[in-house]
């Protein structure tokens, strides 16, 4: 029986090739999108889950509360925190301090291999880190390899890269930043990409210069601390001891009240309040957002399916009637129709796998993650596919099967089943309305996202971002001596307009805040964002002054330039009033000599901070070069040559300011692309679904159309007749979509401090697009029906 059903199903599909094609195409595209989304979500959720004892591992993080209500969060902790915790908490089995650094590694030429220079992130780790996180050691072990100063451990891949074969790496030396020689004492297996610890080069914590720091007042996001709870201890049990701990150690006066808390390992990848060493967090909000899109896609495809199947039901009513009088139970008929749906879904799923495979490279580059469609490496994907097969078969197949199997045989045999019996025109209309609502919501969201993104791109940040190259210079004492000659060499080049040594660009992810005094000995109740600059900083970045002058040439802190927000926060109305007032920070004091016009120092998600600019040559190791945009490329190669000649031991590392800034919106760009693609897919699916539906309706109403023609209706009138109900449905769908879309985009936009004003246009455009699509689809098909030969339709069946 089952075999026969399958055979019949196949023949039925073949007979209605057109609709089968529409069904399968729509279904497979949306299934492929769902699979892609699932693969991505699975990959993201798998972060940091592979470690043993992961439920007992926590990271200590810091937060500050300010008098003005501001809060500030950091993934880092004061450096003395780790030893203090180890000492004070018996509930912690292990405590490990982690210090991130980076530098130029030099591997000497050997056995025919040329010398290798490489800029790489380094991690100073305590041996206990590896007792918290279990890594596989190919050679050595944490307690021997990482106890001595100047010991280095590499991952297998890195060791292979530097030495050809990791076995050769053992015992070799690697020079860091032209200063220290490290001895390779161990090799660990490579880490998976789905981890927040991108370990490559590990140095023993004993080699870290500032390891014995006693300063509880400064926190760098590069200093983290991990702990492993004792078995049987609940993290809640630590609340009280932690409060005491905070009270005991944070005794210094500071404008913000600092405290620490424990963040579970599982939260690190998903909480964007704190960062991580992998520089990537994916909030659950994002994952839920993208999952909802997946659900939308699946829903639209199922709606297509149901619509086509119930429309088709009428033509199959006779078969149902005959089968019933031959002795078929309703249940058997339901199974028959379900097996047909399953067959279609199965074919669509196979196709979807092909589409997924094709789309994977594009997705990898979009997310910058190595996601794979490995059925065997991740059996969960296989389970997901199976679940999709069952879910879609039932979701899409059950209702039509119930309707079709419910036909009364007496009516069915006489071909008297009308669309009214075939599962309510009302339901079909409702489904179309839902489908178009989803389409309209996605169109609105996509338009708003595109508009906001272009707003961000085009919004003036208050400084010049175009054609500014940023080069990180080595900051060792020897290199510092070369700065001036390097600068004059650069300025001599034709394509170079200006050069500035500084700590960071006007907008940078590298920020530092500090407390200060203004015109008194009292510490201000907010902190100021410090930017190390030089006499050419304002010119190079195109910043403009509203009062006073630029900084004069100096190697140390001598005078200050502040921004308008700084004065606003201090309630200074007239910028000229501020000139000459004394500011004291970092233990140095000097007068304010200029006030710079406000510029955005963070991404447009955030508002402008109070900022103070000052000179400090020893820490100004970032070089900004304003270039002539016409001769950009040739000048850049020229600059690279000069760099390599000047700083022979270092790696040339250049980026452009506008790229750096574009990077702030990486997540938004991904979201934008996703919305564009998936809105396109949903529009396409709705479009073909509509085409299928109108085809059936046209066939069904052939008789009526023919009769109307005989009665004198023109083709145009017929097309209008067939169009009208669909246009109404689309209009209603838009009415439903507007408030939902409005709430969603409003929510999204509220994440930006600087955003576009929501107006009516995206909504109107969404309506116009959906009405146009409907008109085109319905008209094409109904024209065919209208011009069909009248006599054929009126012949007795």
């Amino acid at each position: 029986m089952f075999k026969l059903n399958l055979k019949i199903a196949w023949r039925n599909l073949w007979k209605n090739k057109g609709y089968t094609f529409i069904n399968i195409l729509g279904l497979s595209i949306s299934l492929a999108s769902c699979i892609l989304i699932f693969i991505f979500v699975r990959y993201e959720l798998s972060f940091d889950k592979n470690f043993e004892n992961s439920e007992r591992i926590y990271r200590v993080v810091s937060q500050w509360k300010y008098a003005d209500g501001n809060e500030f969060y950091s993934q880092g902790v004061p450096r003395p925190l780790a030893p203090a915790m180890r000492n004070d908490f018996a509930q912690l089995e292990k405590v490990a301090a982690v210090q991130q650094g980076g530098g130029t590694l030099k591997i000497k030429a050997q056995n025919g291999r040329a010398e290798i220079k490489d800029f790489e992130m380094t991690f100073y780790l305590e041996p206990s880190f590896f007792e918290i996180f279990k890594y596989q050691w190919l050679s050595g072990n944490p307690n021997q390899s990482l106890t001595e100063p100047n010991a280095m451990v590499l991952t297998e891949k890195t060791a292979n890269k530097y030495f050809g074969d990791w076995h050769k790496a053992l015992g070799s030396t690697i020079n860091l930043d032209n200063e220290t020689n490290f001895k390779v004492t161990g090799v660990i297996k490579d880490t998976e990409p789905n981890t927040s610890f991108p370990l490559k080069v590990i140095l023993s914590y004993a080699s870290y210069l500032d390891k014995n720091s006693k300063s509880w007042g400064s926190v760098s996001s590069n200093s983290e601390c991990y702990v492993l709870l004792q078995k049987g201890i609940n993290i809640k049990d630590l609340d009280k001891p932690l409060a005491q701990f905070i009270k005991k150690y944070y005794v210094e006066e500071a404008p913000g009240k600092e405290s620490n808390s424990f963040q579970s390992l599982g939260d690190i990848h998903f909480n964007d309040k704190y960062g991580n060493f992998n520089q990537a967090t994916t909030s659950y909000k994002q994952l839920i957002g993208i999952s909802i899109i997946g659900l939308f896609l699946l829903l639209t495809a199922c709606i297509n399916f149901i619509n086509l199947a119930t429309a088709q039901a009428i033509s199959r009513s006779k078969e149902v009637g005959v089968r019933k009088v031959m002795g078929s139970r309703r249940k058997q008929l339901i199974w028959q129709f379900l097996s047909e749906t399953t067959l279609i879904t199965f074919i669509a799923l196979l196709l979807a796998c092909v589409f997924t495979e094709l789309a994977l490279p594009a997705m990898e580059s979009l997310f910058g993650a190595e996601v794979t469609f490995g059925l065997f490496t991740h059996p969960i994907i296989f389970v997901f596919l199976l679940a999709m097969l069952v879910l879609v078969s039932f979701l899409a197949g059950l209702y039509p099967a119930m309707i079709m199997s419910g036909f009364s045989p007496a009516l069915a045999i006489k071909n008297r089943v009308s669309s009214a019996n075939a599962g309510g025109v009302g339901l079909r209309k409702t489904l179309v309305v839902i489908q178009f609502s989803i389409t309209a919501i996605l169109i609105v969201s996509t338009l708003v996202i595109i508009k906001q993104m272009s707003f961000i791109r085009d919004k003036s940040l208050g400084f010049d971002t175009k054609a500014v190259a940023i080069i990180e210079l080595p900051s060792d004492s020897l290199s510092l001596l070369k700065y001036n000659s390097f600068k004059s060499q650069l300025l001599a080049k034709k394509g170079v307009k200006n050069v500035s040594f500084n700590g960071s660009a006007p907008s940078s992810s590298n920020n530092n805040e500090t407390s200060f005094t203004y015109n008194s000995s009292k510490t201000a109740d907010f902190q100021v964002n410090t930017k190390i600059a030089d006499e050419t900083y304002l010119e190079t970045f195109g910043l403009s002054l509203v009062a006073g002058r630029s900084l004069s040439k100096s190697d140390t802190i001598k005078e200050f330039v502040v921004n308008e927000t700084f004065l606003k926060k201090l309630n200074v109305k007239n910028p000229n009033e501020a000139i000459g007032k004394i500011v004291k920070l970092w233990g140095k004091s000097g007068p304010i000599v200029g006030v710079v016009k406000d510029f955005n120092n963070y991404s447009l998600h955030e508002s402008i901070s109070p900022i103070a600019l000052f000179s400090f040559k020893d820490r100004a190791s970032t070089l900004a070069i304003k270039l002539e945009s016409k001769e950009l490329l040739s000048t850049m190669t020229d600059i690279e040559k000069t760099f390599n000649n000047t700083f022979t031991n270092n790696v040339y590392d250049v980026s452009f300011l506008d790229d750096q800034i574009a990077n702030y919106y990486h997540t938004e760009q991904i979201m934008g692309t996703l919305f564009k693609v998936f809105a396109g897919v949903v529009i396409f699916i709705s479009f073909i679904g509509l085409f299928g539906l109108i085809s059936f309706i046209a066939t069904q109403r052939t008789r009526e159309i023919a009769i109307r023609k005989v009665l004198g209706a023109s083709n145009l009138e017929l097309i209008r007749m067939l169009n009208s109900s669909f246009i109404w449905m689309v209009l209603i769908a838009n009415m439903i979509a507007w408030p939902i879309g409005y709430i969603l985009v409003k929510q999204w936009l509220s994440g930006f401090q600087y955003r576009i004003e929501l107006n009516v246009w995206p909504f109107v455009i969404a309506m116009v697009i959906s009405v146009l699509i409907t008109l085109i689809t319905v008209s094409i098909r109904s024209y065919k029906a209208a011009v069909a030969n009248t006599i054929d339709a009126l012949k007795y069946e």
Partner: protein
Amino acid sequence: MIQLNNIEKYYANKGVKSYILRHVTTTIKQGEFVSIMGPSGAGKSTLLNIIGMLEEPTYGTYEFLGEDVTTLNERKRIELYRNHIGFVFQAYHLIDEMTVYENIEAPLLYKKIGSSERASRIADLLDRFNIVAKKDLFPNQLSGGQQQLVGIARALAAQPSIILADEPTGNLQSAQADEIMNLFKKLNQEDGITIIQVTHSEKNATYGNRILHIADGVVKDDVKVIV
């Protein structure tokens, strides 16, 4: 075999009853060949549908094989379809997606008959109706007469005790119609299968041995055909 008592069928519309059948009382015995005749709209097909349990009477009782079947649940009704009743339709109603062979096989599958038994019964029927050569064709590749032969073969496959035929020759040319009617007569006389047919044609009615004349929902006449 069939006992109809005071069968009525009407549709109520805004309080006005429009009758299709009124006071139909009759008995049909095993082995009879009954033709139901009457003008269009007289209620012939409705009566046949009630006998075939495709419609329920509004009033009255109906006993099939001594059992009251006026209101029967789906399961029991399907049991009767599987074992006792075979339908033949004016428009043949073969399943378009199935071959001749599969169409005949379908009721046997529902009856859960073993595959060897199935094969032999179908072979027997194909042989008997001279359609062996056509067994792998689809309905739309056959002439109307041939389709109806398949329809009858399908009705017979489950070895029913009664065949209900609604204008079985209505769509056929007269030569083919004669062939079908002869087949019915033979089935009735040689195999003892009870046959009830609805027909317009006086000539077709003479193949049977009893005629029920219906007009306006009422049995006007019940005559025996004397050969």
